[in-house]
């Protein structure tokens, strides 16, 4: 005596296997659209480096100084000193080789005479930023005694400005 109902066992086994394989295939495909896991780490490393450099530049050079190098740079619009000092800090390594980072720096401030809006002007850069570059942004608040906007017919006044640096690697 033959019972044909037993044929279902094989079909169920094949169906379950197919479901598992299709599920696995979908999951594998799904992982392929993930962004590489460490992209943000390069950004974080650059941010730490740029923040450290600005912070160190904003420390006075001795105990009786009135101003930090960064304050003097902003007050005097001294692009060459900023360029030399900033690049020295961010490119220095403990080994013999230097890093090769690029930056562009601006100074942002509130223009009270123009409806309290935020204006900015370029401070220094060692390369123009292009659309293909992937920069990080680092900032440092600096107290300066300066006429703003530059060239305006007002006497210098003490105020806070934001030094904003875009930093990237080739």
């Amino acid at each position, binding site marked *: 005596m033959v019972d044909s109902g037993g044929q279902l*066992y094989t079909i169920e086994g094949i169906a379950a296997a197919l479901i598992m394989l299709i599920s696995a295939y979908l999951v594998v495909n799904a992982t392929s659209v993930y962004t590489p896991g460490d992209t943000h780490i390069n950004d974080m490393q650059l941010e730490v480096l740029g923040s450290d450099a600005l912070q160190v530049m904003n420390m006075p050079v001795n105990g009786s100084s009135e101003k930090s190098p960064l304050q003097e740079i902003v007050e005097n619009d001294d692009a060459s000193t900023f360029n030399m000092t900033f690049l020295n800090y961010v490119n220095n390594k403990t080994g013999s080789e230097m890093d090769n980072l690029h930056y562009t720096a601006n100074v942002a401030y509130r223009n009270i005479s123009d409806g309290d809006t935020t204006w900015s002007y370029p401070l220094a850069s060692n390369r123009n930023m292009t659309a293909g570059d992937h920069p990080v942004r680092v900032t440092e608040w600096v107290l300066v005694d300066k006429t703003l906007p530059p060239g305006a017919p007002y006497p210098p006044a003490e105020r806070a400005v934001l030094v904003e640096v875009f930093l990237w690697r080739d």
Partner: protein
Amino acid sequence: MHNNNGNLSVDFLAGFTIFIIAFIWVATMIPTLFVGLNAHSVDYNAVAYRTSVILAEDPGAAGPVSGAPCFGVSSASGSVWESTTTAPTKCDIARFGLAISRDTPNVLDENKVDRFFSGTDTADPNDKTNFTYPEDYRKRAIFGDYPYRFNISLRIDGENQTRYVGEAIPEADYGYIRRTVLIKSQSNATIDEPLIKERYWSNGTVMQGNYSEDRFTIHFNGTKLLKDITTSPHEINYRNYQIDPSLDTIVINITGLDTLYYDSPSSLTTTNLTGIFLATSPTASTGRLFNDKNTFTYIDGNSTPVGTLPANVTSNISLVIPPGAVISGSTLLANPQVYLTLIFKNNNTIPTINNTYGNWYINSSMSGPFEYDYNAANVTQPQLRPGVLEVAVW
């Protein structure tokens, strides 16, 4: 009668086998799904960053180290872990940290840097002072259950050598961070022959009269040194440059002592340093904070401290006062004016010469104590030197 109950049919066996094969294949494929996430690389970078923050932004902590067999129970505390006075053994160091304080990130303490990079590669279970790579550093700076390997290096502007701890960095697959830092040097003072002859020479002209003993006093004005620089005008504007005897090493060199004697008829070549005391006034004979603290006193260029007093001095004395050793924060706050006094008696055994010409030496009784303060003419002030700190972890 034949009964089929309990038999395993061939088609069930086939279906079950296909299912199991497919299940095993999928199960073995699951771990490979996470390869693209680079979990190790992410973790290495995170640990490198955390370590750099601990080193560059934290002053560290003295105290019992967790998870390590040690030489007894530690009672150390505070942030001065680099001093063998406050943390006698490496078991008294709970956490490394190179910053001078939590309020001043990226400004590193020279003493902490020197102690941190003084490690050895040889593990000696009986060595209570020197650090061994990797165990001692892992427990105090790297942390975590995974046995990370690492390389921590520091290059200071003006130094030829890069300081480092750890092994060679692999070609790939390691976490990395670089920090820009400033290294604060310690203050020091040199009291040399011209200065002594101008202000502190007990030779009968600059200073009238004879003294049975010569006393030279150094004054630490706690009110000035530790004045809150954030709230009031002060001789110093920034905490980074503050001289704090409870946190900093104080170095005082007294030189040219052999040039102070009366040339003739005296034939003195040495003088006895008979005592050192710290008190709240330059002449205090009672209420002294300590007596004969000679463990930080080096005589005539000797590399080991003078053991007992009195001791013969020919030409120079160096006082290397470790942080908190003689002037702790609480002492300075409780007694804002503290005076460190050295007492000398000459070795001349001829009374008449002693009375007439003796004691041509260093003496601050008339001119007042030497002020250890923010006057750059007296004391070499702390400096900040740029440097770069790198941490690699794998």
